[in-house]
């Protein structure tokens, strides 16, 4: 009699857990993909842990705090490592509704994943969609920071160039004086890159009379430490005062 009851019970329980049964979920693990060499073998102890995690998740649901490990049934374990499971109520005659099991698993997905060193892609609950973690955006996007740095550098460099241009412009104004133009002539040549043959061309000599070469003004003699020859008469002294 007892044996008959036992067989009946296991038959009922076997009926409860079947592929595509009502309220049954398929689970698929990809341990070797996730862990490579450190992969563990899937044996009955791991199955026990899985049942424990599912029972733990169900105990967190209100009205289901009395769920035991024995209420979780596993079946059809394959070499892939995939299996089906159901959660029964304390009477072990009915399975719990799929919606409850689904919400319980979703709330504790992270704990279940971590117990097996897996993640949402390698521990799949088919028909239970994962909840994505909120995107970890920093408060200030990185591109704005780098943009700010580059833009500031460019602005500062532009300001420097404009200011130095203004300063040179002012110095050029001081220089525009015919006497000093010819005297500082020689100092202009080091900026140019001409071969000796080109010095003979008459047209090039005409171009030499200007004080600005390459936009670089020639510095006045006194700033270069040169000497102004006082033997030459300056403009204002040429006219004898009456």
């Amino acid at each position, binding site marked *: 009699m007892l044996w008959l009851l036992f067989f009946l019970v296991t038959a009922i329980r076997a009926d409860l857990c079947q592929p595509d049964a009502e309220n049954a979920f398929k689970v*698929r693990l*990809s*341990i*070797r*993909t996730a862990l490579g060499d450190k992969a563990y073998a899937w044996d009955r102890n791991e199955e026990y842990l899985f049942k424990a995690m599912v029972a733990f998740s169900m105990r967190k649901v209100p009205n289901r705090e009395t769920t035991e490990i024995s209420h979780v049934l596993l079946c059809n374990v*394959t*070499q*892939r*490592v*995939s299996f089906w499971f159901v959660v029964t109520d304390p009477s072990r005659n009915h399975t719990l509704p799929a919606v409850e099991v689904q919400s319980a698993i979703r709330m504790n997905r992270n704990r279940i994943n971590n117990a097996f060193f897996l993640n949402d892609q390698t521990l799949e609950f088919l028909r239970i*969609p994962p*909840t*994505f973690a*909120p*995107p970890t955006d920093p408060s200030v996007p*990185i*591109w704005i920071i*780098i*943009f700010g740095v*580059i*833009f500031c550098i*460019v*602005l500062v*460099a*532009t300001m420097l*160039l*404009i200011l130095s*241009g*203004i300063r040179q*412009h002012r110095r050029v104004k001081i220089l525009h004086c015919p006497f000093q133009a010819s005297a500082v002539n020689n100092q202009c040549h080091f900026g*140019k*890159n*001409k071969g000796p*043959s*080109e010095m003979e*061309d*008459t*047209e090039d000599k005409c*171009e030499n009379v*200007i004080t*600005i*070469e*390459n*936009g670089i003004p020639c510095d006045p003699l006194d700033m270069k430490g040169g000497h102004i020859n006082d033997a030459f008469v300056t403009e204002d002294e040429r006219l004898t005062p009456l």
Partner: protein
Amino acid sequence: MAGAPGPAPPAEGGGEARPAWDNKLQYLLSCVGFAVGLGNLWRFPYLCQTYGGGAFLIPYVIALAFEGIPLFHIELAIGQRLRRGSIGVWTAISPYLGGVGLGCFTVSFLVSLYYNAILAWVLWYLLNSFQHPLPWGACPPDLNRTGLVQECRDSSPVSYFWYRRTLNVSADISDSGPLQWRLLLCLAASWAVVYLCVIRGIETTGKAIYFTALFPYLVLTVFLVRGLTLPGAMEGLTYLFTPDMQVLQNPRVWLDAATQIFFSLSLAFGGHIAFASYNQPRNNCRRDAVSVALVNSMTSLYASIAVFSVLGFKAASDHGQCLDRNILRLINAFDLPEQSVSRDDYAAALARLNASQPARVAGLPLEVCRLEDFLDKSASGTGLAFIVFTEAVLHMPGAPVWAVLFFGMLYSLGLSSMFGNMESMTTPLLDLGVMPRRVPKEALTGLACLLCFLTSSCFTLRSGSYWLEIFDQYAAALNLILLAFFEVVGVVYIYGMKRLCDDIAWMTGRRPGFYWRVTWKVVSPLLLLTIFVAYVALLASSPPGYKAWNPQYERFPSRQEKPYPGWVLAACALLSFLPTLWVPVVALGQLLARCREKTRNPPQDGRPKPQGSRAC
């Protein structure tokens, strides 16, 4: 010839000398930088692959020898001889040809607008490369966090980042949408960088060019070395360079080779004329032309080797993932142990399962994985840079570093071309004396950059990328070919072949030989005319339309083909003809002005008639 006095140069305005290059290297690097641009990287490899690999080099070299180098030599020669920007040069050759210079000026303006918009996109990607993981690697979760964003799931993370997060593209060109502030910021930064570098003309670009012209070569070498060590690189390279001689019978190949050489050397912009005008009068421009053109073509080849080794790696990696997906489907369906079927065993395992359970196997959604299909997925233009290559970079270890290097290289390639564009605009303006002498050069370039920035902000609208394609296809292509034709004809027939040969002999020490004279007189003008006619025929054969990115399209992620609305077609026509219209307009204007002058002051006794007044 050596002792004869040289021809008198055109008088310089005011008392200031013309700026000059610090040394020859700056000038050569500027020309190389202007010629070597984004097209060398993302157009030439695509053409090589589409048109039978190594066989494409034959029409390419022929076009280089008979079209590219002769035209280039002419530009450098007249710029160096007449020492003026594009407008001044053509006015000096003949007042009736001033329109050619104005046309070049207008085309440079239009091109710099959209070229810097592309650089703004590159800058955006560059700024986003400084993070790990890269933002185009994964789809973001949707609003209630149950899945990924629908648009991203249907296409791919890389496409989603490009079309949605970067461009935020609208589904139709008429739907302009608001300005995208992110792109506007990047555009402002881009123009600020350009202004910083061209602020004092060649004085500042000459310093900047050392970096912007040489950095891309460094990065290309790094990519080449890295690319060749990646698995699958060799397959990519053999696929690229395996010649298919049959393809040479297709006339399209010759047309594309000729246009590629033409646009690759950046001819008819006026930029090379401007650069050469700052040279010493006696400089061997023939040697410069040949060397710069050869460097440009060598760079194209070098870049395509680097690009295709990386793309071969990507194809091999995609093929491997396709096989892995199929293997996973098999394992899941038949509950086989994990990793029991390797990539090499896949075909055998599939055959075994198909023999034993064909019905179940037929029910599986297995993909067809062929390496050739993945290698065939080529792209050119922005598709290559922002979709295909960014995806390839994702698979390389240390992805952010490679992304930074790649986009940095793209940016400096484009920046050195922008220098040439800006110079071709500012040099004529300075020569014409548009601003009073008191106004410093910095103000002129600043004004030019500001104007260009404000105008090009239209490319940051949601429909901006569609407009950019229009500008690229219609504003640049046809006008440049026509202007180059007028250039050659103007120099050879109006300036005079004898005068040109005398000038070149004075500048370089040797008269141009038979090859140069034949190509200038006959071959190049004929080639240009043929290219123009063929191009127009090609544009006319297919109704003008564009490919829109429409998530609501039933065949999404394929792009939806849409025709242009009427007002857009009018804009296309305007862009196609406006720059070249300057040529007849100015010629007519000059004719009328001469006529009026003749009727107002009839020539007195014996005074020889001025040239060109045979009419009226």
